[in-house]
């Protein structure tokens, strides 16, 4: 059943007195792949960083309210918030150390797992991310040996290992080849019953392929949000239309 997962009300975000997000009101439901599209400097990444409060570290000023399961995120311990809301970056960056270590690094900080539980967690996360068959024989090899697409799926597995509720992806396929992109999209489709996805993408086709809902951001404003089908076939705003038919951006 679809319930309200994240509710954003009146969100403004400033970096050094420059307003990056302007009065954003948005509701994201569970079981969604919520796509966010828009040209550069639209504030898409800033929105994700506001949701898991990474923006605080950059010295951003955040006004307004973000609620996760109807609890203001300011009232959730920040490490707990970031465990529940995972973030995948555009460039896959694996931590130094083995594939196995990459997966268990986060979980070990949150819980006391036995060796057996950790092994199971590694299996669960890697198979969820569709990577298990490719790496099962070299779990202890350095994670940097993997290809770019594999590294990105490892990053997804690393997030899954924390048993999050929401997984946010910040242009996860921007540096990947089409085949790796398809693999990651399939991973998301397979997992969309378990997690709420927020997908920021520069690739409008990707949003059209897998997004259940799509929001169009432009210059820090939320221009339009609708079901993906509606947004791509009958956009209400002219700017949305211009962007998706490729007139700019």
């Amino acid at each position, binding site marked *: 059943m679809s319930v309200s997962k994240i509710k954003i009300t009146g969100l403004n975000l400033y970096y050094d007195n420059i307003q990056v997000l302007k009065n954003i009101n948005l509701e994201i439901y569970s079981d969604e792949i919520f796509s966010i599209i828009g040209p550069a400097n639209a504030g898409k990444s800033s929105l994700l960083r506001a949701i*898991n409060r*990474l923006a605080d*570290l950059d*010295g951003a000023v955040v006004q307004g309210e973000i609620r996760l399961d109807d609890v203001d995120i300011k009232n959730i311990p920040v*490490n*707990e*918030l*970031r*465990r*529940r809301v*995972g*973030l995948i*970056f555009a*460039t896959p*960056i694996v*931590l*130094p*150390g083995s594939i196995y270590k990459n997966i268990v*690094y*986060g979980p070990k*900080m*949150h819980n006391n797992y036995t060796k057996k539980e950790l092994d199971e967690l590694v299996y669960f996360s890697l198979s969820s991310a569709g990577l298990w068959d490719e790496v099962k024989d070299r779990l202890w090899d*350095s994670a*940097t040996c993997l290809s770019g697409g594999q590294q990105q799926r490892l*990053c997804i597995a*690393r*997030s899954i290992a*924390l048993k999050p509720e929401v997984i946010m992806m910040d242009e996860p396929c921007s540096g990947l080849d089409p085949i790796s992109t398809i693999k990651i999209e399939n991973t998301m489709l397979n997992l969309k019953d378990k997690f709420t996805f927020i997908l920021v993408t520069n690739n409008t086709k990707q949003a059209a392929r897998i997004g259940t809902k799509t929001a169009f951001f432009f210059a820090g404003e939320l221009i339009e949000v609708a079901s993906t089908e509606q947004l791509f076939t009958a956009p209400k705003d002219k700017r949305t239309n211009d962007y998706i038919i490729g007139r700019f951006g």
Partner: protein
Amino acid sequence: MKFRIGPRTSQIIAYILLLICTIFVISILIFIIGFVFKNGFASLTWNFLTQKTKAMGKEGGVFPSIIGTLMVTLFAIIVATPLGLGSALYLTEYTKGGVIRRVISFGADCLAGVPSIIFGLFGFIFFVIALKLGWSIISGGLTLAVMILPTIIRTSEEAIKAVPKAYREISYSLGVGKIDTIIKIVLPSAFPGILTGIILGIGRAVSETAAVIFTAGSSLNIPSSLFSSTRTLAVHFYILAREGISMPKAYGTATVLIISILLINFIAYRLMHRFIARYY
């Protein structure tokens, strides 16, 4: 017509110039080490290493000085490493590149350029006299610690700054707190650089004369506690040569000093490579 050197010729000239620089530098090093070894090797016997010093150094060995050097250096490193690493971490992870950080970094750089004799006098006035620690391993060790702190702070700072910001962001986004991120991600990644700073510190401490002679004294007895006065190898060498007590023994001491520094570097780099191989 303008005279031009062809790209091929300029490549060759550059190559030869750089090669000459390298050969020059290496030959200076080999010459110094060779010179000391040639003069000192005759004195370098097992007895020289294990026996007490007799007749002010004219006879006997350098065993007390070896122990003294070890203790003073070890004490200095044990004091300076946590302090230096701690302040480097504070500067890089907890300040935002503002005025404080620049002032402290500038101070550390200035401190690194202060002649060691000044540290010696400071140590003498502060540790030996004011704190009543006397001529002792503690006074010498603390003085050396103050002296090598800037080296350790600056090298650690650079090493920590070189750890990609993305590592920290990933760690935070996995819900790991700041201090755990520092311990589990930042420090291990910066470790080789930090170790280099410590090795440089050890090198300076082992070979230091001026700062130690005023603070650790020049006793030739085997130190019995941290409050004993002691004579480090470098001081021993200085006194033997300066007072013309025995040149063969002086060169013998210098040989021991050089070998120990080579050994420290060798071991440290081996440790570092083993660490990197295990970690990456």
